[in-house]
Each structure stands twice: as structure tokens, then as C-alpha cells.
């Protein structure tokens, strides 16, 4: 009986929500096409989430400025950005929310952990989902025709890095560290496989987690094993301080990592001690791409902050989604999905084509090294 | 001119009224006792005067209305309560307990002098000055509690059941000290269940019954009053 009270209370709350939703008015500049975006906007990696959102927003702004017509009607794109807090459960809630709001497609999520459970919801709704940065192999291997990614997966990147460590850097003994996130573990696993098959020896596998800033204990242990290369599967926020500790402990091994640290943030956090670190990043360097430079400048102009890591990827993901809609002349997923899977698009991160799983076909991987406090491009491996 | 004046003081715990309409006054230099049976509201009255518990009515001291003062401000005005159960700080040493007594005083020299005086008064405490309060015996704790109160050099000393739980010999010793303090000029308000002892060592006394004051008078006279003798001194009318 007492539940009736609850009910009244709840209904009251929901009415409030209804009012809130009523606030979003519609402009008359064209038919509104909503595009969803999801990334963690609160919590420890919210800086990356915001970066992603900005990349997508820039692509939307450009499309709107170009004045696109779909189905004979002038359209205006609008980004609906949601926060999944890097929490899988919240991830499915906001996924459903986007589906409810009638988005025409979704860019996201950032983490593999939230991308995978959400992909089922988008799949059930028949909506296209393009993740800019979820690299877990599992994401595109569920048999969903709606799941795409514009970044090399762990396997592709790990293989290039493993080969590079042994063949180019010439490492015999390698120490591997990962941050126990889906991303870090996935990349480190694939790296380990590739390095082993290239003839390298993994002397130890150490672990940290995404909340830590002290790595001296595992680094000291690694120091005792005297490896040639230390590989880290993880993000810049940890890699920066870790790099400093590597140098402070007097370790001379070469530091190598993936796209998670190929950022300005790493350079800032690692400071002088970052000198000489290698990192990879899927695609080609922005400077080498048509429109890459201008994207970079526009980003800085608009947001007064540098690109973190994945903004170019969300920018490309959003662009190819819009491109597919334009080609299909429809915002209906049923019509544009087949065209999306046939994408052949020159993005700022490289040539984007999908394989049958929705993975980036022949994704190229570029390698960089820190020199004089900046990432210096070395070479691009793979790609066509 | 009364030193402590209490007007229609009331204390309640939820719906239970522990004391109501209590009005009393104490003159400077007097030793006044408050006697009554267990649960009559004596301790509540004393705690209310000290500010330990909330109350209604007025408590005036030395010409100041303290009714709205929190406990530490009342202490600052010269009230010192030796609470029921002694209230020794068990983790502090004897010496520290005594020094805490002088918390509000700033004159280091006179504090040192008083400390010596207390140790003279209670040589047992001197022996145990480095021990923590929790390790003392009941009697020693009572000495410490009184000593600590004296360290505040109070204008009015409030004593709550100083004889409780002590061996007869110790009780005598404690009351000897109380009389000594009284003769040194400190005003004392004493709550005691041992009515005979209380009346014998006070000038005046109040009798409390179920939360209200029922009698008041000269201690010697009360000792002779048949009602008091019957109810509180355990003597049957022959």
C-alpha cells in the first residue's frame, strides 16, 4: 500500500522530466537530423571523451555549413552528446536514450567496455554505430551489420608494434606492462604475440591500473631484468608519469606504446623524460593528409585546446556517416547502411574502407618518436 | 546577594521530565547540599547548571545570566563540575588530567603552584602522575576528579555523588578534603545520596523529590527534621 506514495512521487518526477524535454525547440533552418555521440564526459578519462565530442561536432558544423540536401530537403545535423561515465550499464541506458530520441546514427562509444554492450541496442534498433576508438576485437566480431570502427583494432596495431620492436628497434628482451583496461590488455596481448613470433623474448609481464600514478615498484623489477624495450599498453595519463619514473630509476630501455599515448598530453606529462619514446597511431599523420592541417587549426581555433587523441577519428566517423546518408539520399538506416559498409572515403586519418566485419580494411599504422619535445613521424606500416 | 541563582529550571528527556520548576540560590562561600533519593533529578539539575544538558528556566551566576551559555563558557565563568562517575580522561596521564583542569588559565606560574598544592593534598596522585587515568582505582580517580576541578581554581565547585562506589574509608577521606576546600573559601554545591554525610558537611541543603524541590533549610536543622530522618537517613520514628 505504501507503494502508492512512491508511485505518486515517481510520476511527479517523470512529469518534471517531460517538462525538461519540452525545452529543446526546433529551428526552421531545415529538417533536423540528429546524430548521437557517446563518450565518458565525467570521470578520469573525460578529457578524451570531450575531445571525441569536439571532433564530431566539427564534422557536423562543416556539414551544416555546406548546406546538405537529403531527399530533396535541406537538412541540418545536430549532435546529441551523451555521457556513459565509462560504465557499461550507463552505456546501455544512454544508447537506448539515443535510440528513443530518433538519432539517425551513432558515433561512439569511446571505451570497448561500453561500446560492446551498447552495440546490441543499436543493432536491435537497426542503427549504424561507428566507434572512433574502441579497439577490442570482440566489438566487430559479434555478427552485427551495424557495428563499424574507423580505427585499427588491437590485432592490427599490436602486430605492427610487435614487429617493429623486434625487427626495427632490434629488441631481444622485452618487458610488457598493461593497465588492465580492455584497451591496454588487448593491445599488450596482441603485441606480445607478434613480438614472440618475430623472435623476441618477453622477459616479464607487469600490470598497473588506470588509477595509479606510481609505477616505481614494477619498474624497479623490470630494471632488474634489463630489457631492451618496455612496451606499455595504456593511456597517456599514466604513460607520462611512468616515463619520468623510467628515467629517474636509470632504466635505459626504449619505451614503446600504442595510440593511447601518441598525444600532446603525453609530451606535456612526460616532459624532458619523454624524449626517445616510440608510439604508434592508426592512420596517417594529420599533417600528411589533405585537410588534416586545416582540421587541426580549426580545432584549435574553435576550442582553444589541442587535439587529445581521437578527435580526428570521431571527425572522420561523423563525416563518413553523413557521407553515406548523402549517397543514399536518405537518413533511414535501412537505406544508408549498405552504402556505409561500402564506404571509400579519404578522411583526415587515412583512406577509410570497411571489411565484412565493419573493421577498417588494411588500416595503416604510423610510427612516431619523441624528438625535441614533439612527436616526430617515422614511417607508416601497412595500408595500401 | 546570591552567587548562584537558579530560577524555575526544567530538564526533560523526551517526554520524561527529570526536573521542573527548580529554584534555588547559593551565597558566596557557602557549601550547599542537594539530597534526595535515586532518580529524583539531582544529577540532572547539577548537569543543567553546568551546562552539560539543555534546560529551560534561568541560571544566573555572579550577576550574569548564563542560561544561553554552552558548557565551556560556563566553565570559563568559574563553574567546575565533578561529574557523576568522575569523568576521568582514561587515555591521558594523571598529570595531563590535572593540567586539563587548568585549561582555561593562562598564568603558568600560578598553575604550577596549584599543581604542587594538589599533589600535596593527594600524595597518591603524585606517585601516579605518569600513569594513565584509566589505570587508577576508584578512589584515586575521585581524588583526581576533584583535583582536576580544583585546578580550574573555580568560583563554584559542583560535586556530583562524590561518595558513590567508594569504600567507607575512602569516602571519609574524600569528605575530609571537601570540607578542607570549603574552608578555604570555595563555594560548593554538592549532590549526594548519602544524606547524612552531605548534611554534616554543608551549611544549607535542599531536598529533591521526583524532579521538584520539596524542602530547604539549614543543614543542622534538616538533620534534625523528622521527615528527613525518616526518608533519607534511614531512621524510623520511634
Amino acid at each position, binding site marked *: *500500500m505504501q507503494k502508492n506514495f*512512491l508511485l505518486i512521487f515517481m510520476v511527479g518526477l517523470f512529469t518534471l522530466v517531460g517538462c*525538461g524535454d519540452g*525545452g*529543446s525547440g526546433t529551428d526552421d533552418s531545415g529538417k533536423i537530423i540528429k546524430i548521437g555521440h557517446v563518450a565518458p564526459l565525467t570521470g578520469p578519462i573525460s578529457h578524451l571523451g570531450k575531445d571525441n565530442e569536439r571532433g564530431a561536432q566539427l564534422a557536423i558544423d562543416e556539414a551544416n555549413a555546406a548546406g546538405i540536401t537529403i531527399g530533396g530537403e535541406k537538412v541540418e545535423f545536430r549532435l546529441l552528446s551523451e*555521457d556513459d561515465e*565509462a560504465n557499461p550499464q550507463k552505456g546501455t541506458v544512454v544508447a537506448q536514450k539515443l535510440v528513443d530520441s530518433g538519432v539517425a546514427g551513432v558515433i561512439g562509444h569511446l571505451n570497448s567496455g561500453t561500446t560492446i554492450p551498447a552495440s546490441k541496442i543499436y543493432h536491435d534498433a537497426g542503427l549504424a554505430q561507428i566507434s572512433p576508438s574502441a579497439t577490442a576485437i570482440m566489438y566487430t566480431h559479434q555478427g552485427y551489420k551495424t557495428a563499424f570502427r574507423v580505427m585499427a583494432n588491437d590485432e592490427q596495431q599490436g602486430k605492427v608494434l610487435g614487429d617493429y620492436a623486434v625487427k626495427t628497434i632490434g629488441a631481444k628482451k622485452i618487458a610488457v606492462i598493461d593497465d588492465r583496461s580492455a584497451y591496454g590488455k588487448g593491445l599488450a596481448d596482441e603485441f606480445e604475440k607478434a613480438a614472440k613470433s618475430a623472435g623476441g623474448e618477453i622477459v616479464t609481464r607487469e600490470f598497473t591500473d588506470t588509477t595509479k600514478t606510481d609505477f616505481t615498484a614494477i619498474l624497479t623489477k623490470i630494471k632488474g631484468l634489463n630489457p631492451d624495450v618496455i612496451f606499455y599498453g595504456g593511456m597517456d595519463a599514466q604513460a607520462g608519469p611512468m616515463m619520468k619514473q623510467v628515467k629517474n630509476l636509470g632504466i635505459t630501455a626504449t619505451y614503446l606504446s600504442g595510440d593511447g599515448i601518441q598525444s600532446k598530453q603525453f609530451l606535456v606529462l612526460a616532459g624532458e623524460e619523454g624524449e626517445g619514446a616510440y608510439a604508434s597511431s592508426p592512420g596517417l599523420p594529420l599533417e600528411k593528409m589533405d585537410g588534416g592541417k586545416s582540421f587541426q587549426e580549426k580545432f584549435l581555433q574553435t576550442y582553444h585546446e589541442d587535439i587529445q587523441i581521437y578527435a580526428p577519428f570521431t571527425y572522420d566517423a561523423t563525416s563518413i556517416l553523413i557521407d553515406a546518408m548523402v549517397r543514399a539520399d536518405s537518413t533511414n538506416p535501412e537505406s544508408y547502411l549498405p552504402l556505409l559498409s561500402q564506404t571509400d572515403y579519404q578522411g583526415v586519418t587515412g583512406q577509410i574502407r570497411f571489411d565484412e566485419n565493419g573493421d577498417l580494411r588494411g588500416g595503416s599504422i604510423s610510427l612516431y618518436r619523441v624528438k625535441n619535445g614533439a612527436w616526430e613521424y617515422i614511417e607508416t606500416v601497412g595500408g595500401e | 546577594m546570591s552567587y548562584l541563582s537558579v530560577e524555575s529550571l526544567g530538564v526533560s528527556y523526551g517526554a520524561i521530565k527529570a526536573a521542573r520548576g527548580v529554584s534555588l540560590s547559593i551565597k558566596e562561600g557557602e557549601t550547599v547540599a542537594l539530597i534526595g533519593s535515586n532518580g529524583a533529578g539531582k544529577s540532572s539539575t547539577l548537569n543543567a547548571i553546568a551546562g552539560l544538558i539543555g534546560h529551560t528556566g534561568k541560571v544566573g551566576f555572579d550577576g550574569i545570566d548564563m542560561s544561553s551559555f554552552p558548557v565551556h563558557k560556563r566553565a570559563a565563568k568559574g563553574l567546575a563540575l565533578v561529574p557523576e562517575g568522575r569523568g576521568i580522561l582514561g587515555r591521558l596521564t594523571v598529570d595531563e588530567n590535572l593540567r586539563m583542569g587548568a585549561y582555561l588559565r593562562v598564568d603558568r606560574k600560578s598553575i604550577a603552584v596549584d599543581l604542587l598544592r594538589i599533589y600535596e593534598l593527594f600524595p597518591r596522585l603524585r606517585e601516579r602522575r605518569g600513569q594513565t587515568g584509566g589505570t587508577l582505582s576508584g578512589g584515586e580517580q575521585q581524588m583526581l576528579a576533584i583535583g582536576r576541578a580544583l585546578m580550574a581554581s573555580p568560583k563554584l565547585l559542583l560535586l556530583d555523588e562524590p561518595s558513590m562506589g567508594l569504600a567507607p574509608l575512602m569516602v571519609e577521606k574524600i569528605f575530609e578534603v571537601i570540607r578542607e576546600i570549603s574552608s578555604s573559601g570555595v563555594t560548593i554545591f554538592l549532590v549526594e545520596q548519602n544524606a547524612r554525610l552531605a548534611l554534616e558537611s554543608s551549611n544549607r541543603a535542599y531536598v529533591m523529590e521526583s524532579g521538584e524541590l520539596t524542602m530547604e533549610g539549614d543543614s543542622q536543622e534538616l538533620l534534625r527534621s523528622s521527615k528527613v530522618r525518616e526518608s533519607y537517613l534511614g531512621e524510623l520514628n520511634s
Partner: protein
Amino acid sequence: MSIISKGIEKIRSNKRILFIGYVLLGIALVSLPFLLSNTVGRTWVRILDFALIYAMLALGLNIVVGFAGLLDLGYIAFYAVGAYAWALLASPQFGLHLPFWAILPIGAGVAAIFGILLGAPTLRLRGDYLAIVTLGFGEIIRIFLNNLDHPVNVTNGPIGINKIDPIVIAGADLTRTHEILGIQFSGAHIYYYVLVLLLMITVLICVRLENSRLGRAWIAVREDELAAQAMGINTRNVKLLAFALGATFGGVAGGLFASLQGFVSPESFVLLESIMVLCMVVLGGMGHIFGVLLGALLLTTLPEILRSTASPIQESLFGAVYIDPEALRMLLFGLALILVMLVRPTGLWPGTTRKQLGNKG
């Protein structure tokens, strides 16, 4: 609230009104998802699903914290155990696909065993020492789940387990959309009914427990352990039972979560979740079953409500969005926790009889 309680008392005494009340409540519960999906969107049905799961969790924790007075900061571990038990027994991970009626008791049982495992060594501990040990226990479980991919792969580590079987009844997958009598029922919608049913059972068990010998023993232990011992209560067993029963509820909730989500990974079982469940219990009214329900529903829906209102409110108040709506949302959430506690320190809806209990000595 006292007026409402009195009103409830009045209604309770009248059987006819009571009956009508139950019928209305039943209709309201059945129609709520329709109402929500047609007004504020189907997301809200999903949010409600999670709210119900959290309600179950909160009721379980309420047994440990509210009834028995044992402060547990690692409660989410049992939720995790339940979820992983389901995930391992009904997914391609080991190729096992047990039916739900078999896994649910297994998950509950395993969680209960973990409850006892946690309880046994910590019985001597009191208050906040217990809190930190339970917190450590919760973290230990999460760390193991996160790392048991090596040397033998059990949990898939941080990557998590995908493609977990849903509840299947009569061949129908409950996470898919079904059409019954011409009405479309989404997966979330069907789960809602399953969850409401299970939550009702949970509430019933809790009410029964509270009024049982065991319930009184818990309260005795909570109020004064020594006295309880003196009364002849075997405090050790009573506490262990609290841990085990609380854990069981957590395990069931975890299993339901895994099957609804179809995916589990250690990210869902972080310490913050334990703290949130505790907040639900305390904010709602510790020890009072319906208060705890209210707390769970409020704290799961409030962030979602703020999600859709944070920027409109700002816009209408200041004409523009100055503060990042996501930051504002969490800001308001934190503020709400503080304000509610300041205004109602015993919780929003404390039990009427035990309002005074649980106070500091």
C-alpha cells in the same frame, strides 16, 4: 511524512480500501512502462529496469547494514559474483548454456558462500574496521575478476564476457521484442515485469525476515551486541546469516543484470557502485524496507532526470549553457545527497517505530 503514515494506517484498517489500493497499485505497475515509453521514451523503461535491480541490491544491503548494523562497503562484490556466475554458466565463454531456473539458484548460492567467506574472518571486527575490510574484500573480488584471464582464462579479464544468454521462457528470448495480443513488448519492457515480480518476492521475504525471530535477533545485535549475547543470541551465526542472506540478494540481482545486459566486465563492479548502493539504503531510510526502496528508485533515476534537465534548467534560468551539463548533473547529484541528509538525517522515509534507533550513544 507523519501525516502520510497516519493516512496509511487509516487506509490499512479498512479492508475494502486496501483491496482497491492493491488493485490500483497492480494496474499502475503493469501500465507504468506503457506510460513511460509513450511519454518520455523507452529509455525510461530500461532505466526503470536498472532501478529495480538496484532496489533489489539495496534491499539485500539493507539486511546487512540496516537490520544487522554491519557496515559493508564491498557489497557490490556479491553482485559481481552473481553476474559472473550467470555469465560463465550461460555464455559461449565455456560453451555452457544452462537455463535460467538452474543458474539463478546457483548464482544465489555461490554469492551466499562468498557472503559467509567474507563474514567468517571479520566477525570480531566492529564498526569502521569492518567497513574497510569489506571494502578490501570488494576490491579483491573485482581485481580477481579483472585478472583471471591468465594463466588460465576464466573471466576474459578486463575485456569482459559477451553474448550472455538472456532469460528464455518457453523458447522466447526475453531481451527481444515480442508481440503479444497485438501489443509490442520490448525486451526491457518484458524484463520490467520479471524484475517487478522478483522485487515483490524480495520485499515479501524482507518483510517476513524483519518480523521473524531472526529479524529481531539482528536488531538486538545492531543495538547492543553484548546484550544480545547475554540474551542467548548466537551473535556469530546471526551475523553470518545476515551476510549470507544479503549476499544472496546481491547474487540474484547480479545474475539478472548479466542476463539483461548480455555483457559483463569488471568495470560494472567498482567501489563507487558499492558506495552508491549504501547511499540508497541510508538516504531512503536505513532499516525501513519501503524507505530503502524509495532511496534506490530515487538515486537511480535522479542522475537520469538530471541528464535531461541540467541544460534546459540552465538555459531557462540564465539564458545559455554556462556549465557543462555533465558536470552540473553530478554537481547537483552531490548536492542532493548533502541536502537530503541535512534536512532528514534519518533518511527520507525512516521506519515509524525505529526512528530513534541507530543513534550515536
